[in-house]
């Protein structure tokens, strides 16, 4: 047999790109986003300083589009296409993996809707100069608050299950034991992100800055 080059089908490549884009850059950005927003737990000044630093990076719009907006649009758009091609049967076969399969689709949609609204209100309506008080103001509205909590939980869940899926689907966790470990890793990530996300929301809502005394100490 000749060493003919392998030509994977285009749908194969798009599907792999969908899986990869959920981890990098989308998942990685989510981690960065939760991290920089947890500066709210330190204090208002520190948060604004951190925000300004991010808002003044060079090539800002290009970086945002390439690393955040386009990957999220692709991941969400192609994800909906994948959803439409599947047919959930969790009522007939209520196994854990099957539940995760179904929930992964709904949480993805909720997260996508939330992110769209979140980017619109906090990135575009503020002309890219969102501050602590903008977010704090938004979270005074009980509906916005509820939407934030739901958005944070849906995104965290989706990332956690996504990590498990990614490790299985790239064969990085191939044996039953490795897949079980991958599941635990995904669950931990989902839980930690949920917790941190909620703490950030609480911080804005109650003006609660538990790590603030380190700032005042010096």
């Amino acid at each position, binding site marked *: *047999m000749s060493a*003919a*080059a*392998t*030509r*994977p*089908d285009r*749908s*194969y*490549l798009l*599907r*792999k790109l969908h899986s990869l884009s959920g981890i990098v850059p989308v998942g990685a950005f989510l981690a960065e986003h939760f991290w920089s927003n947890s500066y709210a737990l330190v204090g208002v000044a520190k948060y604004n300083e951190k925000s300004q630093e991010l808002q003044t990076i060079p090539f800002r719009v290009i970086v945002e589009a390439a690393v955040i907006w386009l990957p999220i649009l692709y991941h969400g758009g192609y994800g909906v296409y*994948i959803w*439409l*091609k*599947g*047919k*959930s*049967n969790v009522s*007939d*076969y209520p*196994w854990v*993996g*099957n539940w*995760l*399969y*179904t929930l992964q689709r709904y949480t993805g949609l909720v997260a996508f809707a939330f992110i769209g609204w979140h980017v619109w209100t906090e990135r575009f309506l503020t002309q890219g100069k969102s501050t602590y008080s903008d977010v704090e103001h938004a979270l005074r509205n009980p509906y916005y608050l509820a939407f934030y909590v739901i958005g944070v939980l849906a995104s965290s869940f989706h990332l956690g299950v996504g990590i*498990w*899926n990614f490790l*299985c*689907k*790239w*064969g*990085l*966790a*191939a*044996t*039953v034991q490795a*897949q079980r470990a991958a599941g635990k890793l995904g669950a931990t990530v989902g839980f930690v992100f949920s917790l941190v996300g909620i703490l950030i929301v609480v911080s804005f809502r109650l003006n609660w800055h538990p790590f603030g005394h380190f700032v005042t100490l010096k």
Partner: protein
Amino acid sequence: MGETKKVILRVKRQAGPKHAPRWEEFALNWRPAMNVIICLRDIAENPVTRDGKKTTPVTYESNCLEEVCGSCAMLINGKARMACSALVDSLPQPIRLEPLSKFPVVRDLAVDRSFMFESLKRVKAWIPIDGTYDLGEGPRMAPETQEQAYPLSRCISCGNCLEVCPQVNENNAFVGAAIISQVRLFNMHPTGAMHARERLEALMGPGGIADCANAQNCVKACPKEIPLTESIAEMNRQAWKQALLGWLFG
């Protein structure tokens, strides 16, 4: 003397591929160690419905009666199972029998599983041993590989793993877990490995391995306890590696 115990069966019947389905109910005399195939045989002996109407015997497939031929897969109380190993005493009644839903119905409970056979051909699920001359003995297989290969070789092409997979449906031509696992089996074989690249390439084609969405139902439904999710993960790794190397080095 008390009344004989009855087994109530509801069977989804369909006269042909284009006919509308209908339900028929049967009441059979209970016997010890009865399984679903025995029920269908009893109906064939005396094809009368529960309300006394004469009907035709129910069409179904079966052969080995010991879960090794794969022909008797059907939906039993809504779940994909082998009828020959489905014991009546372990099933809540009335027992509902339906044909597998992911394959075209031929008649009653018999379905056409040629989609699986065509997929097996697409991935070259065989070991080439014929030539225009005597090819001689093939290389030996390490005992460790044999141990891995044996469980995979037990697939009986029943189709249960396709039936329970949310990714296998009329909008999606996903080949399903069994075929991916067979690629692993044949690529593992020292002679079969001569076609390893082509098999992986077929798996990277339309309806191939990338359509798996990791619901992991297949491994739960397989009557032969084949480690299907391991096979899929393993083949996924081999596939993207081959794609990447092919792209980098031609």
